[in-house]
């Protein structure tokens, strides 16, 4: 059964209260600003790349618990990953989000992000969960790390 407890899992609210990698870094290779025009939620996201072509993400934003926690989880998940690995993670997460609750997600690949699987049963909240993820994809496109 879908209920409020299954949507707002402890892990999500923990990330909302204590977000990871929040606060924008100084020298990004790409910097994007994404807004959810239906509710006004915002995420600024800076993308960094180290000498071994591994990613780093810092961000700032205002919004609901789902959008902010999801961006926090994302920033932790892709840290130290290659851009192709990050793209694979984004695609797997997008697939969970569009599954209407039928796909729970691979914890090996998605880590804490599987906690958001319940969001896919609430169509109005999917954009919240994807806000930071679409921002990262956009930043990787701008940095020409993917095409």
């Amino acid at each position, binding site marked *: 059964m*879908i209920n*409020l407890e299954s949507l*707002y899992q402890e892990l999500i609210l923990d990330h*909302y*209260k204590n977000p990871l990698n929040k606060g924008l870094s100084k020298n990004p290779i790409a910097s994007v600003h994404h807004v959810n025009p239906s*509710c006004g*939620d915002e995420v600024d996201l800076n993308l960094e790349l180290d000498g071994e072509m591994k990613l780093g993400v810092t961000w700032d934003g205002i*919004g*609901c618990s789902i959008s902010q926690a999801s961006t926090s989880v994302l920033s932790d998940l892709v840290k130290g990953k290659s851009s192709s690995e990050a793209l694979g993670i984004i695609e797997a997460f997008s697939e969970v989000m569009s599954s209407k609750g039928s796909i729970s997600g691979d914890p090996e690949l998605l880590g804490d992000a599987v906690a958001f699987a319940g969001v896919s049963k609430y169509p109005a909240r999917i954009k919240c969960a994807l806000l930071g993820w679409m921002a990262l994809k956009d930043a990787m496109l701008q940095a020409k790390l993917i095409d």
Partner: protein
Amino acid sequence: MALDVAKIKRDFPLLSRTVRHELPLVYLDSGATSQKPLAVIDAESDFYRNHNSAVHRGAHLIAEEATDIYEGARAKIAHFIGADDVDEVIFTKSATESLNLLAYSFGQSESSSAISLKLGDSIVVSELEHHANLIPWQELAKRTGASLRWFPSTEDGRLDLSGLEQIIDVSTKVVAITHQSNVTGAISPVSKILERARNVGAITVLDACQSVPHFPTDVKTLGVDFIAFSGHKMVGPTGIGLLWGRKELFERLSPFLFGGSMVTSVSMTEATYATAPRRFEAGVPNMAGAAGLSAAVDYLESIGMESIHNHELALTEYALTQLQAISGLTLIGPKNSVDRGAVFSFTLDGIHPHDVGQALDDRGIAVRTGHHCAWPLMKKFGITGTTRATFYLYNSLEDVDRLVEGIHHTQDFFGARGIS
């Protein structure tokens, strides 16, 4: 006389359904769209079953019936808003289209017309406007070189008229103001604004989307030039909007959409145009929508607009007391019931509106969250959005209690998890 809300609720099929966890629905989103009584649903269905034909065209009985229904709806709307002349009522697809029609046509008029705009002229709106009564005027200002001015909002979400004489001056050609804010519920002091506008010869437009459905509105008493409102917020169907305007002004306005039905003659190189209302109703119109709207007016009149207004006033007084007693709740809007509709926007400390809406939905309470198409007003208040509960004739005092209980539950749910 007090409304028999239980009886009214039974007229609206959707209001008897259950929502999440089999809970009965508490519908508090009529500011976005109202629910429809069976009479409206039946009227729209009856049009398709028995009278469907293109109005003003066919040489047959069914076309005559369709025309009677469509023009009958126009007459009914005219009477409902106190308009003397039926031809002053234009059917559009929405209030948004009605306002766009005006903003477009004001920009198209001959330079000899008093309605045309140019560099140095000004258009006046307010900070409380819905995007639909803001952006068309922004665009008109850009097209013509006119400047856009606005009345600011006060701290409690009312129009601040302290700068009335400066904001509306001899340069002002158009004043377009909301009749009642869809965010704060404040009813605008229109008589003062319209008087000033008339003194400088400006055209006046009222966005009446949140007023016509909720209290008696008479265009003659208002003394306004144009009003725009929508069918779906007054228990009518979606897809039909209204524009009322003074006939002599309509005659000086260029048509907005061109095509069939709106002409007097056509050659291969040019056309001449009919007078209002046909002038502004190109194409086959929303006839079933008009049939439904006609039934909506009958329904509202059977209850009585004065009774609906009084009922909402009682709801407003009760809700204001109950909501303001909640610790951690900030009401965005007037704190008393004077010149105020049953629209309650609020924020809860530490809990984002979207999360509030989700938690209320889990209790069967339907509200709206976000910026309510009034983004500039949100920025004014330094917030990204609010939770908004809007009440109508089918809402009861118990619905206020359910909302209050839902808010407490929301605070408990997130509070127990360390949020707020």
